[in-house]
């Protein structure tokens, strides 16, 4: 299983190249890509910056992909133009959600890898076959799909590779991309807030860490190809998630039992949690550390 990391600056890219990430993806601040530049450099600011990132990645022998996974409407022409330019400059592929854009790229026969975004909610083999008509070569599986439910998608005979998120760190309580529970100027996520229900506290439930780590074990052993670390809201959390992912994959390669992996993985998570808590105190933006949005 390879590790793919989302980057938003050269500093981040340099760090991950040095520390052995297998591949990268990045966005452009002028093109909608679900993660906007709230709270840090989550996307590159110019075509020149991205071109340099392509050159750096290729020099290190790594692939890099461009993420444009939103419905583009008024940005459609600009998105197509930017994709064409970046592919010409050597970008290895594009991560897409918009059916209109998928359709257009197919019609112009653009020669690049097409990765279907996790936001397309490909929950079954039939949906994968629907999107295969748009020449996709990979999909990012929805976070709310369990490994046993993804078995047929992962083992597909269409030649489509699969990506999964490090869900013990990055998990949306609700369907990612179909959640509109955000308020305020910076569209703060409310999914992990404490609500009041009949005078008592209510939290939206989510799977415990042990379940998420068990799912990683199952995805790995079923043959999911890529473990994905999202673009981070701050410079340090992405590095922590990456270092944790490296350790988890190192253990998985030793072929432990499921129970033994979960036990070790929880210890690793606990150790990294200490660093996270230190950063939380430092930045006072606690909610963002466990959310990709």
């Amino acid at each position, binding site marked *: 299983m390879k590790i793919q990391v989302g980057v938003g600056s050269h500093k981040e890219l340099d760090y991950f190249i040095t520390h052995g990430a297998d591949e990268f993806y990045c966005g452009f601040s002028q093109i909608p890509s679900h993660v906007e530049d709230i709270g840090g450099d989550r996307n590159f600011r110019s075509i020149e910056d991205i071109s340099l990132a392509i050159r750096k990645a290729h020099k290190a022998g790594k692939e890099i992909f461009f993420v444009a996974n939103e419905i583009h409407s008024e940005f459609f022409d600009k998105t197509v133009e930017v994709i064409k330019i970046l592919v010409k400059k050597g970008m290895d592929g594009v991560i897409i959600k918009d059916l*209109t854009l998928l359709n257009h790229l197919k019609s112009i026969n653009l020669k690049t890898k097409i990765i279907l975004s996790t936001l397309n909610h490909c929950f079954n083999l*039939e949906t994968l076959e629907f999107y295969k008509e748009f020449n996709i070569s990979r999909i990012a599986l929805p976070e709310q799909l*369990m490994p046993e439910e993804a078995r047929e998608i992962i083992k597909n005979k269409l030649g489509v590779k699969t990506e999964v998120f490090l869900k013990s760190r990055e998990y949306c*309580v609700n*369907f990612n991309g179909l959640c509109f529970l955000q308020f305020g100027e910076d569209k703060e996520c409310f999914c992990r807030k404490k*609500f009041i229900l009949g005078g008592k506290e*209510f939290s939206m439930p989510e799977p415990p860490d042990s379940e998420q780590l068990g799912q990683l074990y199952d995805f790995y052993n079923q043959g999911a190809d890529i473990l994905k670390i999202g673009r981070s809201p701050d410079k340090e959390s992405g590095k922590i998630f990456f270092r944790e992912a490296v350790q988890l994959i190192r253990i998985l390669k030793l072929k432990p039992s499921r129970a033994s992996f979960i036990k070790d993985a929880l210890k690793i998570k606990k150790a990294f949690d200490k660093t996270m808590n230190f950063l939380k105190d430092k930045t006072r933006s606690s909610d963002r550390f466990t959310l990709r949005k």
Partner: protein
Amino acid sequence: MEYAISLTPYQSRKIKPAILLKYDRVYIGSEFCQNILPSIEDIKFLRTKGVKKITLLTGLMVTRRLKEFEKSLESIFKVEKKIEIVVNDLGLLRFLHLNYPKRADILLGRPVSIDYLRMPKEFLKGFFNKYNIKRIESDENNMVEDLPLNSFLKVSFHFPLHYVCMTRYCPFEKKLTLNCRHSCENKILKLKHSGMGKSPLILHNNAYFFANKPCYHKTVKRLVYKPLSYKDADRFISTI
């Protein structure tokens, strides 16, 4: 204008037939939860009560559930010449297109329809034509009111619940499961948070909503009412 009522199979058994018959059409199932899909038994039940027009509601489905529903559709098509069905899952859309191309009128459901409302009409026309999509289901007052009056889109407008988010990790079962005990049935919970203002967030089944009001834009050809309790079932239709 057509008036419809939207019910889960469980709710449909609890509402007096006389009230059901006040509506032009009954929506049955769920757009949000794959554990609340309509069955042939639900359709037969509604038919025996005299319901003439039925729309099936479906949501996103994992492979196992989709295969089960495909089998269920076989039984449904044995007794129904043609169906109207709300689709969110593109795998189901493909299945219906390949297997029952002229026998299923497709409605694009909430919660995915918000994306389609933002797509260019040139693309949508071809897409709708290919897959026999007849209309869009929406609860987005602002987006629907922004549609051009001469839009080719036909909208069914859902109220009084406006979709906000949904989860597979069931708030009632406290787990991710396909073997559901339906512990959400007949429960409507109101959540409050000072950061959201005065409106409560309403939890129904596996989805969260805010309240909304019916939209009477020219593109809206159908109003779909979701009763929040059994005694509410005829509250809306009695005002028409």
